[in-house]
C-alpha cells in the first residue's frame, strides 16, 4: 500500500522536437534541477543511432537512464516504450520521469502508444515541444508536417537558441509558434543557460 502511494505521485514530462533542437540539453538542465531538490529522476532516452550518445553523458552525470536505441519509439520501437516505462517505475520508483523521444519521432504516434499504457497513472503528464529558432524557417520548408505536429501536440512550446538566433529569426519562430499555441504557452529559451523560474514552473509545476 505504501509503495503504491509513492508510485502514484510520479510525474512525466515528454520533451519533443526535431533532431538537434536542444532536447537533451534542456533535459539535463531539468534533471539537474529536480535532483537538487532531492527528487528521484529517471530518464528514458530514445536515439535513432545504434549506439547511444546522450545516454552515456547522462550516465556520466549520475542519472538513472534507460535507453531505447536503433530506432524510433513512435514506430519501430513502439512496442518497447510502455514496457520500459513500467520497468522504470518498478526499478527506480522515481518522482519524475523525463522522456526524450528521438528527433524523428511523430508525437501524435507517441501519444497513441502512451494511450495504451496500463501502469499506475501519472500524477501529471506535460508535453513540451522545443523548436530551433535558428533553423525553423528552413525546417518548415522541408519537413513542415513533422514540425507542425510537434507543436500541435504540445502543451507548451519552447523556442530554443534565443542567444544564437537573430531578432528576425526569433520573431519569425514566435509567429509560427503562435499559429499552434496561445502566447502565454510560448517561451524563448537558451537551453545551454539557466532556465527562467517562470518556465520551470510550466515544465515542472510540482517543483518547489
Amino acid at each position, binding site marked *: 500500500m505504501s509503495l503504491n502511494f509513492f508510485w502514484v505521485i510520479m510525474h512525466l514530462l515528454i520533451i519533443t522536437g526535431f533532431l538537434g533542437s536542444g532536447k537533451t540539453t534542456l533535459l539535463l538542465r531539468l534533471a539537474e534541477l529536480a535532483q537538487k531538490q532531492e527528487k528521484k529522476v529517471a530518464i528514458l532516452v530514445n536515439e*535513432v*543511432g545504434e*549506439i547511444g*550518445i546522450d545516454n552515456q553523458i547522462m550516465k556520466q552525470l549520475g542519472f538513472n537512464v534507460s535507453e531505447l536505441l536503433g530506432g*524510433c519509439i513512435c514506430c519501430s520501437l513502439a512496442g518497447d516504450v510502455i514496457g520500459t516505462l513500467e520497468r522504470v517505475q518498478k526499478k527506480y520508483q522515481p518522482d519524475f520521469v523525463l522522456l526524450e523521444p528521438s528527433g524523428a519521432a511523430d508525437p501524435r504516434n507517441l501519444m497513441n502508444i502512451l494511450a495504451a499504457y496500463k501502469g499506475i497513472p501519472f500524477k501529471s503528464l506535460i508535453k513540451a515541444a522545443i523548436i530551433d529558432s535558428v*533553423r525553423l524557417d528552413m525546417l518548415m520548408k*522541408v*519537413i513542415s508536417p513533422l514540425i507542425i505536429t510537434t507543436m500541435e501536440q504540445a502543451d507548451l512550446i519552447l523556442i530554443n537558441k534565443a542567444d544564437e538566433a537573430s531578432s528576425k529569426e526569433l520573431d519569425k519562430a514566435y509567429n509560427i509558434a503562435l499559429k499552434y499555441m496561445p502566447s502565454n504557452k510560448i517561451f524563448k529559451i537558451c537551453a545551454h543557460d539557466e532556465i527562467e523560474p517562470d518556465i520551470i514552473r510550466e515544465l515542472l509545476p510540482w517543483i518547489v
Partner: protein
Amino acid sequence: MDSLNLEPYTVKLRLSRQENGSKYSYNKTITFFTEHLAQLCMLEKDSLIGHIKGFATDSEGSWLRVSVTDEKHPAHLEGRISGKPEYVNLILNINVLGVPADRIKTLLNDLINNPVICNSVSIVMIPPEGKKEFVCI
C-alpha cells in the same frame, strides 16, 4: 524539395596522436572533424543536417560531447578531453536527411584520409560500425 529520407549512420572512431605530432589536441581535432563533416554533408544535393553529434572518451574518464546542427555555426561543445592520453574513442551519430548512409561513410573516409584534418592525430574506424536502414520522416 521533396520529402527526405533519414538513414542514421553510427560509427566508432579511434583517435591517436601521430609519432611526429608534437602539437596535437584531441578537442580541436574532434571539433574540426565534425564541423568539416557537416560542411561536406551540406555540399550533397538536397541534404539537410538533422544532427551530427559525437561523444569522445579517454581511459582517464574525461569526455567531450560535440554537436553540430548546421554548417554555418560552430559546434557546441560540452566537457573536455583533458591530459594527454595515447588515444581517444569517439562515437559519432550522423543524422543527415537526404544523404544515404553509404555516402556518409565515403565522406567520413575522405575526411579520415585528409592530411589537413589529421595532421597530428590519426583517425581510424573501429568495428563494429553501424548502418541502419531507417526511414521515419
